[in-house]
């Protein structure tokens, strides 16, 4: 058997490779050591609870009663019950309305508009507008929700007093509209700040060129600004869509009422899991929500990647 021998040059050439491969291995080990605590935390606080919820969704586990002491495996019964429940579908539809209305159209649209209008401004007006918008974002949910409940109250509400009308029950007659407007008001600050920073990166020379070429305002936005900040828009959409999807604030405003007309999915899960005590059923609905969130995330990430 002939032994394959390497010429001396090849051996020489291989030496640095071996060296670099050792170094890379050491580097990977070092990186692994540094990353391990974070991975452990992710595993403990994200992966394990998620897997546990998947498992719970397959049991009849309850908050009280005999099934709390001895839960039994029921397979996909909870999932079937969840999707057979008309309340689940109405909650899903209300959540779509909530996300589309307040996050996609409201916060993105309004946040961008404010950022665009304030882009070249300095002085007290800009500070005032920014301050007012950000105030809503930095206040705790419970406090701003309480303020809105007081503002929209049909008997003693400030809004009815300002409009000079009596007995109009905003939260009862138009619960989703009230919640959507609330969420736009509350969440627009984040989008505004993000777009403010993004617009600062649009080269003024490009806009100037477009202006000189006779482009209208809309054409400047469409052909110069949006392509530049496309990544920011998609990242913002992803973040605020997921936040809104999981937002529990509607509970503080209406508790899901009246008659489930504002029972978005986050509230639906709370109602099923903790108010009714059906933890297994609630876990099954949570699993569905997780899947929907994953689909939404993948969709946005694909859009982001398609840019490259």
């Amino acid at each position, binding site marked *: 058997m002939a032994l394959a021998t390497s010429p001396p040059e090849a051996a020489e050439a291989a030496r640095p490779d071996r060296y670099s491969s050792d170094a890379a291995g050491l580097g990977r080990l070092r990186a692994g050591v540094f990353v391990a605590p974070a991975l452990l935390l992710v595993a403990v606080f994200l992966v394990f609870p998620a897997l546990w919820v998947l498992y719970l969704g397959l049991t009849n586990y309850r908050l009280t009663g005999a099934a709390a002491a001895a839960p039994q495996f029921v397979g996909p019964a909870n999932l079937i019950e969840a999707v057979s429940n008309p309340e689940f579908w109405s909650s899903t539809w209300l959540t779509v309305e909530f996300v589309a209305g307040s996050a996609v159209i409201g916060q993105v649209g309004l946040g961008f508009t404010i950022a665009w209008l304030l882009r070249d401004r300095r002085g007290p007006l800009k500070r005032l507008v920014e301050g007012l918008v950000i105030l809503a974002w930095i206040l705790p949910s419970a406090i701003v929700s309480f303020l809105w409940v007081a503002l929209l109250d*049909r008997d003693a509400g400030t809004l009815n007093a300002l409009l000079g009308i009596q007995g109009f029950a905003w939260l009862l007659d138009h619960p989703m509209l009230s919640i959507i407007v609330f969420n736009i008001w509350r969440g627009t600050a984040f989008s505004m700040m993000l777009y403010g920073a993004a617009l600062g990166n649009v080269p003024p020379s490009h806009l100037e060129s477009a202006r000189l070429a006779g482009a209208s305002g809309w054409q400047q936005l469409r052909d110069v600004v949006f392509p530049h900040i496309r990544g920011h828009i998609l990242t913002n959409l992803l973040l605020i869509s997921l936040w809104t999807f999981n937002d529990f604030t509607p509970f503080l405003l209406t*508790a899901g009422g009246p*008659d489930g007309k504002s029972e978005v999915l986050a509230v639906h899960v709370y109602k099923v899991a903790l108010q009714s005590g059906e933890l297994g059923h*609630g876990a099954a609905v949570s699993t569905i929500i997780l899947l929907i969130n994953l689909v939404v995330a993948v969709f946005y990430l694909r859009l982001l990647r398609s840019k490259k």
Partner: protein
Amino acid sequence: MALRKRSMGVVAVLAATGLGLAACGQSSGGGGDAIELTITQNAIAGGKNAAGADFITNWVIPKFEAAQKAKGKDVKVKFIPSGVDDEQYKTKLSLDLKSGKGADVMDIDSIWAGEFADAGYLKPLPDLVGADADNWDGWSQIPEAVQGMATFNGKKYALPVGTDGRVLYFNKTLFQKAGLPADWQPKSWQEILDAGAKLKSSGVPVPIQINAGTAMGEATSMQGVLPLLAGAGGEVQKDGKWTGASQSMKDALGLYQKIYGGGLGDPKLQQEAKGRDKSFQQFAAGKIGILMEGDYFWRGVVNPKTGVAKMADRDQVVGYAMIPAMEPGKGIRGQDFVSMSGGALRAVNPNSKHPKEAFELAAFTLSPEGLKEETKGGNVRITPRTDVNKEILAGEPLLTYISEKVLPLTAYRPPVAVYPQVSVALQEATAAVAGGTPPDQAAADYQKKLEGIVGGAGNIAS
């Protein structure tokens, strides 16, 4: 291990749904030689059930600690206040108990006893504290019906805190304007509707308020559909069978339709998250003519001194009457008048490190001296003990009235674990009717839901 798994399950559900409901009750620690005990109620100084919170803080704790010290024991007691909706309080307690924690002594609604016992959250008192539980001298002073609220499967799980009764409250000033008598006592539902119509024509914004819907929670069942059902001759459960879409259920829901569909009640009030609190405020402000409520309304809501909707002229303005059956003699047991009663229990947490001392603390709060102290200064309530009730209730006409006239004809909810789910289904039925669904349809929907809760049509009376 099983317990730990269950605890992790709760954490997992909360983490995955992004809900941060913190379980704040802590079991006693027992540092050094001192025995540390905690006691919790849905009561908070300056807020909900403030008088109860003040009683525990200002009387029970110092007196109990002193009494224990006299016996040579160093005991420290801490009160854990709470001022939330009863449903939220129940969720918090359940989570505390599920995770093996919670206050050593806790007040619960009597209808939670079955669910909590089935879950292993409560243990029979003799199992926890031995013979002391059976030998407590207070038992001989507590009527059997009241003891029954703390009894599940033949075993005592807690100490009863008291009982209550339901009546129709009315505003005498509004009644006078509408030409109705100050000593009003309707003898049928029609007479209530007639009074409502007169109040309406005299300009009263909300002539009648009978709790409906899920936003009111158990208040809808206790101060709404259950007394009406009893008035129509029905019981939510009888001889092990549940009442479905029976005629009595349709009649009870029919009254809701006449009130909320006929402009005599405010259906929106039934849908608001804080609708019950708002109804209290409206009654106190003279906007509601007739309100069906428990004696808590008199003691804790319109109480001139400690109420959440104080009425300085309560004793002159607020009248009360027994709840009539649909027609004379048509109520349960052939009665002319009906009521529902409930009550709270004071339970010892099986997770307590010092169950014997915890039981002593619970019993101490229900000593004759404790009850007399608690009910001082206008904070009168019907206590569980007959040996002090007469003295306590003297000079308190409403509670004497309830004690003497209402309690003999009252009814209790079935002490079974599944009742709270049935109650929610009842609340949904009333919500549907207040929202415009015909009573027959709402009753049929209720029966369908009931079948799923109680294990099929075989458990429902035909």
